[in-house]
């Protein structure tokens, strides 16, 4: 393994166009795709554009499509592939290309601004905030999101339909909305927004987002479906709405 070579086809280009280019670098034990990209930069193409930070699956910067599958480059080991296989690395398709593997993900940061802030209820009489671990487990699952935007990338509502971006926040923000909605301390009501501006109804629960989540968040089952149920209760079931208002969230 140590003396072998790896072959990689990397998309090079910018908004005007581009093409795959093949590179060969020496293989190393335990190498991940990002290591190969770095080796290509150091020896073949110093201007190969790529985003990365932590190199440990914690920051969500190095998202790409590897052999057509959305993945983090830092967590994709080269021994996942057959020896000698040419690996193809392309930028995320859903976002406009800036250069090479770097895309313009500003859509996500704009969307984030539109989500009303966390608004906590009053403190306990003794001035503390008490929450039971069991009540926050499900929200902590959502807080694991590293904002790699792979779920956004794979979601067919926006992947193949640029025009839907205006009406659809995407799985990342359904996770965020669910995290706020289920936060034991939050008092803000975002269901109207979830239904209208965020376009929850567009999602037809094909679970593509869940499949690509590197943090293994059950986006569809634990975030999107409960949100859909709450929207239904809120807007189409007055009794459930009343009960929920009385009993808290």
């Amino acid at each position, binding site marked *: 393994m140590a003396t072998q070579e790896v072959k990689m086809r990397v998309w090079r280009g910018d908004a005007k166009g581009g093409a795959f280019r093949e590179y060969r670098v020496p293989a190393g034990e335990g190498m991940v795709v990002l290591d190969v990209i770095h080796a290509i930069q*150091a020896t073949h193409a*110093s*201007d190969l554009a790529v985003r990365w*930070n932590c*190199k440990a*699956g914690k920051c969500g910067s190095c998202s790409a499509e590897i052999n057509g599958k959305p993945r983090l480059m830092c967590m994709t080991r080269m021994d996942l592939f057959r020896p000698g296989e040419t690996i193809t690395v392309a930028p995320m398709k859903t976002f406009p290309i800036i250069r090479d593997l770097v895309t313009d993900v500003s859509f996500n940061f704009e969307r984030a601004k539109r989500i009303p802030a*966390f608004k906590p209820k009053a403190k306990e009489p003794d001035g503390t905030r008490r*929450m039971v671990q069991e009540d926050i487990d499900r*929200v902590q699952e959502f807080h694991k999101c590293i*904002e790699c935007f792979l779920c956004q990338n794979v979601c067919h509502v926006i992947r193949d339909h640029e025009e839907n971006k205006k009406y659809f926040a995407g799985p990342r923000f359904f996770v965020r909305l669910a995290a706020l909605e289920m936060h034991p301390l939050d008092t803000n009501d975002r269901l109207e927004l979830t239904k209208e501006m965020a376009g929850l109804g567009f999602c037809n629960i094909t679970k593509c987002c869940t499949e690509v989540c590197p943090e293994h968040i059950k986006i569809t089952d634990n975030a999107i479906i409960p949100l859909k149920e709450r929207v239904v209760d809120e807007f189409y079931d007055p009794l459930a709405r009343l009960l929920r208002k009385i009993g808290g969230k």
Partner: protein
Amino acid sequence: MAAENQYETHEYDVVVIGAGGAGLRAAIEASAQGVKTALVCKSLLGKAHTVMAEGGIAAALGNVYPEDNWKVHFRDTMRGGKLLNNWRMAQIHAQEAPARVLELEEWGALFDRTKNGLILQRDFGGHRYARLAHVGDRTGLEMIRTLQNHAVHQGIDVYMECNVQRLLKDGERICGAFGYWRESGKFILFKCKAIVLATGGGGKAWKITSNSWEYTGDGITVALDAGADLIDVEMVQFHPTGMVWPPSVRGILVTEGVRGDGGTLKNSEGKRFMFNYIPEFFRAETAETEQEADAWYEDKKNRRTPDLLPRDEVARAINAEVKAGRGTPHGGVFLDIASRRPADYIKRRLPSMYHQFKELANVDITTEPMEVGPTCHYFMGGVRVDADTTATTVPGLFAAGEVAAGLHGANRLGGNSLSDLVVFGRRAGLYAAEYAKNFTGSLTVNMDEVEATAQQLVAPFDGKGGENPYAIHADLQDCMQTQVGIIRTEKELKQALDKLATFKQRLTQVSVEGNRQYNPGWHLALDLYSMLEVSEAVTLAAIERKESRGGHTRDDYPQTDPKFAKVNVVVRKRQGELRISQEPLPEMPEELRKLVEEQK
């Protein structure tokens, strides 16, 4: 003479550079004070180094041990820092950390809970009581996301993937900053009254490091170039537990929480070797037997396990075990939690460690030990600041977080970094805003200076020397790793200085290909300037401190020297040269000195 409108130009009261915990908290505070605030960061928002912090945020909340209070936290911090700390910073930090943690909760953070529903706290090295508020082993992510989500509603303008290269002054005062957009390569000029540096450290100059590409010491360098003082830069923390295998992941952090939650270090003979490395300074408070050490986890009346001695002690011990031939096959030691805690407990407490080892090293940490070794992690030293206001020695320039120095002295305790970020980030924002409000004079940017800087920044495109920036970087990392590493000698440090001079020479011959749009080779060529300057500052300071203390170990001066206990090593740039001096530490008040000297 360049026309002013040649560059994209923005005006602010306060510009915060860096968007990790300290920068975000500073920007939130400055904005809350009603001044026009910008936040400038090299990566996308939420990707800064804070996101990688694992174990927790230290604050004497007293939720798990009511005996805990700021005085104990202060004492632990000072002793962990081998008393080189700025006592006033350590006091402010210990006093204000609990309020800052509770504030994060007000902004939506969800820390793990005690049975009573309060914030749970975990054991960490050098802390007498379980003190770290945490979320499994991804506390930094919770913190940065909470601050980020809060900040986007505060009317702060955020400049992402924007790299500041120079601070601008009008006379002695800060009047702006100049840099480039990574995406387009175009220049950008900020005119402002005050700047907060929150740019982190410079660990990317070492080969085995837990630091990301961003850690190039650029904040330290722009401050130095602007005339600010640095202190304690010889104090570089090597975290004892980084991954060692496979080679591609070498240096990636393994949280101290593994030991905090019951994991123990063993050598190739299966011995818990830390019992052989208890220094005199910590003997009275450290367990001497395995039974006592294990009992400490349950009852703090027992003395603390030596596995959780401060990081400098543990890193040196691991280094010594490996040198003595008792290392693992890949040159580390074993970190074993598998034989000590049940699998479901490990997965619940340390999910990202489980994931990281499983995916990157094919190791199941619930059934087998990890292999770990020291990795360059943190700069205790950096820009000298006023303890209360975070003001540097340059009017209008403030600094908080890792880029600032003083709080941690010669060695930082785990968990004290995240609390540092929010305690002093808030203060930096507050006092920078106050400074900006109180300043009524006029400031003028010298456009000739800006134009000259712009020309320097694009020079690598015209370089005909053919030097590859990646090759210079790799050689620099080798040099700092082997000659300015955990164990240092004058001879090697001087060799390093010679090499740094040749790297500087090579940097003048650097050539980059392609154009200015998102060009990592060009960016690295520019980053090398700061990495080299910081490396030189560290090496010079390391030569100056002829003793061993905290993160600075000299093989030729293995003892601590009382003379050096009373001084900071100061680095300044004057007439283009780095100058070294020793200056007295601030004197600690008597009542605090008593706290620190208390045994056990």
